[in-house]
């Protein structure tokens, strides 16, 4: 494998791993926000509409920014009725072929993300809710997350190709 590809794999994996490490703590932040919401509403009778929506936005950031890391952990289920019977090399070969479908989907998602973010910035779009927060920031975050997932999918593709040709990248 050319050196530049090795470097790409190393950097992309590192970025997604570090990002994933921080993103996983968002679970606790979401939990805290929801508990705070119930406490203020029930005990002090002060409802904060924005808390719940903030938690929703965090959840979007959570699973999309964490997407690349979850792919690294190989957390995504596959139908393995055939897959399970193949040797590791055959699996890598098949994965390197079908990586096209995954990359295609993520690339269309990315294009949609760009277009949708640009629209929100241009027209100052806000969410249909009582709080009516601007939509641009969360859309940009999601677009960045999708881009990182795309990079991760390509990194996994390189690793599969390396495995098939017998020159594994660590």
């Amino acid at each position, binding site marked *: 494998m050319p050196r530049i590809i090795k470097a790409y794999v190393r950097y992309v994996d590192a970025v997604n791993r570090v990002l*994933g490490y921080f*993103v*996983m*703590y968002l*679970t*606790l932040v*979401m*939990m805290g926000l*929801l*508990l705070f*919401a*119930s406490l203020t509403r*029930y005990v002090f009778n002060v409802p904060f509409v924005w808390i*719940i929506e903030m*938690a*929703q*936005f965090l*959840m*979007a950031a*959570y*699973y*999309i920014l*964490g*997407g690349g*890391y*979850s*792919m690294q*952990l190989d*957390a*995504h*289920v*596959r*139908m*393995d*009725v*055939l*897959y399970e019977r*193949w040797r590791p090399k055959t*699996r890598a070969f*098949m*994965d390197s*072929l*079908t990586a096209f*479908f*995954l990359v*295609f*989907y*993520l690339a*269309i*998602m990315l*294009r*949609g*993300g760009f*277009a*949708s973010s640009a629209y929100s910035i241009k027209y100052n779009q806000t*969410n249909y809710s009582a709080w009516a927060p601007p*939509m641009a920031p*969360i859309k940009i975050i*999601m677009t960045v997350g*999708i881009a990182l997932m795309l990079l991760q999918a390509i990194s996994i593709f390189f690793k599969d190709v390396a495995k098939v040709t017998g020159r594994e990248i660590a």
Partner: protein
Amino acid sequence: MSYEAIAVLMFSTFMLLLLTGQRVFGAIGFVAAAFSLALWGEGAVEMPFASTITLLNWYPMLTLPMFVYMGYMLSESGIASDLYRMFHVWTGPMRGGLAVGTVLLMVAISAMNGLSVAGMAIGATIALPELLKRGYDKIMVTGVIQAGSSLGIMIPPSVVLVLYGMIARQPVGQLWLAGVGPGLLLAALFILYILIRCHLQPHLGPPLPLEERQQITWGEKIRLLRAGILPLLIIFSMTGLFVMGVTSMVESSAVGALAATLVAWYKGRITRQVMEDTLRKSLAVSAMFMWIILAALAFGAVFDGLGAVKAIEILFLEKWGLEPWQVLVLMQLTYLLMGTFLDDTAMLIIVAPLYVPLIISLGFNPIWYGILYTITCQIAYITPPFGYNLFLMRAMAPKEVTLIDIYKSIIPFVLIMLVGLALVIVFPEIALWLPNQVYGK
């Protein structure tokens, strides 16, 4: 090309892609993106991304990461081992008693969590090795754990019913209460099966030996009952406060997550390493589910654009001239068939929007229908080739349990669940009595 042909082509492309072993979300997402571009051209390029906004505004989805985290936290907390020990001593003297105790353990876990993951993790790591050591039949035990943990999506809280509630626009509170009766009914049927089977074939589940029983004094037996206190507190803080109207549904899942964390902390199980592992596993599983939902929403949007709801109604009622109950049975059959090889979450998101409007227009109760759907989903979880509990079982089972054992083990339980499904179809009151009592007619 006719719309029906396009729909069939979409499903077959999807099936073919799944067989290659590509990630489920990638396969669904590709079909959705490719077909929306092919059908509507450049203007549809934003369609797959639009589902992120739909999901963003699905407020109840917040329960998913909370329950996933809570499930992992519960299995770390050591509550389950205490509970297992309690059931072990109390039900062990009977023939097949330890398997009965495992079903009861699964009911308790299901009442504390909305997914089947927690039950599987606890069953495979705590109950399974213990039962094998006691000479229980490995095939029966494997089946008990898979079927028992699937109660997690029926007994409240339930994430599957949250998802159904959003798609069908039905109140989740009523759906959750409607799950209590059928969940307990299924558990009772499982227990009945174990008792009868072990009575006829005692070698499948030998009772605890006499000397072991004599070692346990009554005082100790009573003391072991204390293991039930913490689970009851968790169930009360979560479902109890929600039904009393103190917390909203989503808040109740956060309360449950906090309660599980506090219990683990109280039991001295929380270290930096445990916390990090739990958070990492939660992220991985939540992201896995969320991306499948995201891709399935995009797939469903293409179906919607094709006018599939109307097409199905015309097909069932006008072309085939079916009676309402025939439509209902046909729907359940398609669910069962698809559930064996499709991802159950994706199936709900793609198919429920097509079926629910028809169910309502035929005069069936959509709450009751949600319960019927959940039972088929439970069956789908354990039927090969695709089922979440099968995957988990394979990953967690000890070496002596082979794949063939796992596949064989589910057969009696699938039949029992079909009996349960038939009972709830014939007697809707099993599901609807409790919500009607609480919320009024």
